[in-house]
């Protein structure tokens, strides 16, 4: 069975694009439409990689990322951030939350800004999954 890749994005068109790229490259795609749903699926499905959007209803990717990285049993889940939100904003946001007293979290290993080319996405997924 191929490795599981969970796509967390509120936009159905983006989910379709991402899951198609995932599937065409031999992985098993899973979907969630917001951070909360994403967290539940990470716990239940234990995906090998999470492709995470940032700006979403219910819970943003910024909070979900923080939740994963501060949870001992989930911090090793590989994450690829794929968002219209700039990487520097993501980093500043995490820094602001740390300044407000929350735990420090590491920088994301993989970050792509939308829109992304299918080849670039596929290559980054392969790199993330080793």
């Amino acid at each position: 069975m191929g490795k599981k890749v969970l796509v967390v994005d509120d936009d159905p068109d983006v989910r379709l694009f991402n899951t198609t790229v995932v599937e065409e490259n031999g992985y098993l795609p899973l979907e969630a439409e917001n951070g909360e749903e994403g967290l539940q699926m990470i716990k239940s499905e234990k995906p090998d990689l999470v492709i995470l959007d940032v700006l979403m209803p219910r819970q943003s990717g910024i909070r979900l990322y923080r939740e994963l990285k501060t949870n001992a049993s989930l911090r090793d889940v590989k994450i690829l951030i794929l968002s219209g939100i700039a990487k520097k904003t993501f980093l500043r946001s995490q820094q602001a939350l740390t300044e407000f007293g929350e735990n420090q979290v590491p920088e994301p290993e993989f970050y792509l800004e939308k829109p992304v080319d299918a080849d670039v996405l596929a290559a980054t997924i392969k790199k993330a999954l080793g």
Partner: protein
Amino acid sequence: MKIGKLLFVTKFEDLGYDALKTLLSLRQSGLEHIVFMYVIEREKVSMRRGIGYQRDEAIRLKETANIRFIDWAERLFEQGMEVGVYIQIGSLAAEVAKAVRKEEADLVVIGRSHKTTLEQFYSGSTVSELIRRLPVPVLVYKPVTDNPFVTGTPFQRPLIATDWSPASLRAVEYLLDLAPLIEEVRVAHVADAENIEGSSVMTAQKTRKDAKARLEEICARFQAQGTTARSHVYVGDPETEIERAARECQATMVVLGSSSKNIWVERWLGSTPRKIAENSAFPTLLIPPAIG
């Protein structure tokens, strides 16, 4: 009452980031999550003879909104706030009601309705529909540039208009919970002119004195929390006099309790909170009969 999550419903021309910035003082009362919402009205992209469903137009509107929201979200994320977004096609009031339920928002902020009087009569005004549907307070925002009298952020110097109804007393309780945000509160009552006309000077003065005493009881509760409060009695048409009071007090917002009238009663007879929300130059906060 904590305002932890705010749903900011915009058509962009009515509410921009400058408006949102004036609400960031709510962070002192626990605001940490802002959800942006843009509703593409169905008729803008619906099926048309010879054209069909206007998919390209829907995509254009959606992506334009998305670009704006990304820009706003970046500014808020960098301040350590949580941000969400909804871009939906449908009826504004129905989609807002759905998002409020889904997000469990504590406050809805919306711009003034742009419907004409005739459209409002047939389809109901957006504000009226929202008041009826939502279990949470609705702030009908008016741009400061529209009103030279409004100088400050909405929660800085609110004016509470009370008719002693349960709804307006709930508005008092609501603001008491937000007292740390408030610099000064004014509490006003508009007495019915019919109670004054034709009565003796003594009766008229007694009406004023009784109202003033009841208003002072409310003021005392704010003062006990360290917030400056003053009371005012006006006489005449509530809509006109509340607007006058807000202007004279240099209020930054009018706060009213709203009762949920039957839809047709409201369309024929109107409701004071709805009229003020639609017509006043001041931002208007409407507190529903029961805060959910």
